[in-house]
């Protein structure tokens, strides 16, 4: 049975499952590093997922859908930026309002555009970047190695690779560029940033918009590369799990990605295990709740030792 569970497909699936979490988590990292809490990731992801499908259905091009998802994410994030930076609202409250707005907006638009609630019709999904036959020369040692490598590393769609690249680039930029230095300072000591003549408002706006773009891209990955249609409330708490991944990854992009990969692996595992439900006789609901239980366990194990940016969640008032 173990041989049926631990297959190359399990690990490939882990990368796929990790991608929306990782993109949103990196968005959360950038946002929180600038001093703004973004619990709206869930709603932004949902709007991105919807925008991607709606544009793909209208124009027939999933790539245009990706662009639309990112732009929609940025637009929704702009609301969060305005309320939490300019109006200095409570950031958690503003995020909650956006999550409810996203639920209402996508549901409302779905009904007026397609005439029914629930799920949209299927779209053309984005295909994997590389395509090699899976079973080439299986049986030989190198054939097996090739199979594993081909499935785990070469079977993915563009945004899955994109997420890895974004994690690495964001990590580098956060610690090696002027932008990164300012970003980290914004979350730790905004007044110091202000004193040296860098605008806190501008810096935080850019960070929030970037997190919106990333969460929108996460939504695009979900609908345009994985599911192939939009269902109301389909993000199912991924935005919140992404926040946990950001904490587990200690507010760093590569850490966020790694933590998401862990969550993605367990998600892939629970799907795999469901096939053997007959043999182990556990109700499916227990598998489905695994990602959420794991998130709590991870938070319980790590949070005490992980300290976030000092000024996170605090509105900045100049003067």
């Amino acid at each position, binding site marked *: 049975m173990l041989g049926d569970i631990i297959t190359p497909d399990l690990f490939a699936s882990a990368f796929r499952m990790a991608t929306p979490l990782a993109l949103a988590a990196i968005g959360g990292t950038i946002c929180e590093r600038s001093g703004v809490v973004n619990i709206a990731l869930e709603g932004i992801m949902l709007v991105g997922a919807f925008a991607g499908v709606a544009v793909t259905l209208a124009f027939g091009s999933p790539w245009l859908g990706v662009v639309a998802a990112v732009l929609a994410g940025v637009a929704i994030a702009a609301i969060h930026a305005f309320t939490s930076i300019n*109006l200095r609202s409570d950031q958690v409250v503003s995020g909650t309002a956006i999550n409810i707005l996203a639920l209402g907006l996508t549901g409302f638009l779905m009904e007026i555009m397609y005439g029914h609630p629930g799920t949209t019709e299927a779209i053309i999904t984005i295909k994997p970047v590389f395509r090699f036959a899976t079973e080439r020369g299986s049986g030989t040692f190198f054939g097996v190695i090739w199979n594993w490598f081909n499935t785990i590393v070469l079977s993915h769609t563009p945004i899955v690779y994109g997420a890895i690249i974004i994690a690495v680039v964001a990590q580098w930029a956060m610690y090696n560029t002027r932008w990164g230095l300012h970003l980290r300072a914004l979350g730790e000591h905004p007044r110091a940033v202000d004193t040296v003549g860098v605008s806190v408002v501008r810096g935080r706006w850019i960070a929030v918009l970037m997190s919106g773009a990333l969460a929108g891209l996460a939504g695009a990955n979900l609908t345009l590369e994985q599911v192939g249609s939009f269902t109301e409330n389909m993000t199912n708490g991924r935005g919140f799990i992404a926040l946990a991944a950001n904490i587990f990854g200690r507010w760093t992009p590569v850490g966020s990605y790694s933590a998401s990969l862990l969550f993605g692996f367990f998600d892939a595992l629970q799907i795999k295990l469901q096939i053997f439900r007959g043999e182990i006789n556990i109700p499916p609901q227990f598998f489905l709740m695994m990602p959420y239980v794991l998130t709590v366990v991870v938070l319980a194990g790590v949070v005490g030792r992980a300290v976030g940016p000092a000024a996170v969640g605090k509105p900045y008032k100049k003067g």
Partner: protein
Amino acid sequence: MNTSKAKSSEGLDWIAITQKIGTPVASVILAILIGSFIMWVSGYNPVAAFSALYQGSFGSPKAFGDTLLRSTPLILAGLGLAYGFKANLFNIGAEGQLFMGGLAAAALGLALAGQPWYLAIPLLLIAAMLAGAAWAFIPAILKARIGAHEVITTMMFTYIARYVVSWLVVGPLKDPGQIPQTRLLPVESQLPRIQSLFSDATLQAMPFLKFGRAHMGILVALIAAVVLWLVLKYTTLGYENRAVGFNPFAAETGGISVQWTTVKSLCISGALAGLAGAVEVMGVHHRLFDQFSSGFGFTGIAVALLAKNHPLAVIPAALLFGAMSAGAGTMQLVADVPQKIILIVQALVIFFVAAEGIITYFLKQRQKEVPSHVG
């Protein structure tokens, strides 16, 4: 805020009261205006929509009964959230505690078949409160001991609660029929309808008492609101809750255990959410199934924020959202507007209530345009 409170205890300070309710009222009006604009842009008639909404929520005694029905769990969930907010705890997962409350009420109700109502109903309500509190307990401990953010943990527990309930209604608690739900609760465990208190003759003479499906849970909710108000105002428990929310460092210095207060606050918040689930099961559906709550725990957030966390103000705030939820069906039927517009209006209300600086912000923008004297 503290000074206005001191004043109001001497006598009604109308200026302070107007200032306090000004923002919420303005927020609701603005949200409805923007909602209307969205409807208009989408090709609907907002006037027809809102008059249908009014018809479906206040247009007849039965419609008002539906509003009461929807408001009941909203008052309870809103109270729970308000209590947490007072201590600066954002119990975003009230929905999960509500699910566990509903589950406890259903399971115990079925087990207590044959017991008299005066035993069954209080026991069910207490069990639901304990279940809600228990579901908030782990997030509470994690928050108090290691600072795990309650927004993430309570949200995760909401998903877990949904799967627990959906497992039980297809598994151990399943009614031996086709539909995934529990058996019907015994009559003794059901909260009676308000109109069942009156004789047929009375209802004939006074048809305005025909509140349809509205049930006695509203009484539970109103009592809870008054009790919570008294607790916050006059007890050490309530004082500590407020003190920790106001300034945890000062509270700690003053001898209040912030950790312990955090645990108590989240558990009380969960207990009230659990109660909301119980009244929904005992008063409306009389059984448990996995979709028994239409997001009352989440709407409770909007209720508490609109009420500015005041237990008594939670009642009108819940009535407003209860009315929207009750009238949404009529609105869709008559004016063809998708019910989801209600969620959009709800989100807008939260934005405006949260952004108290919004008016001063725009005033400042205008001031900037006026050249000022150089100091």
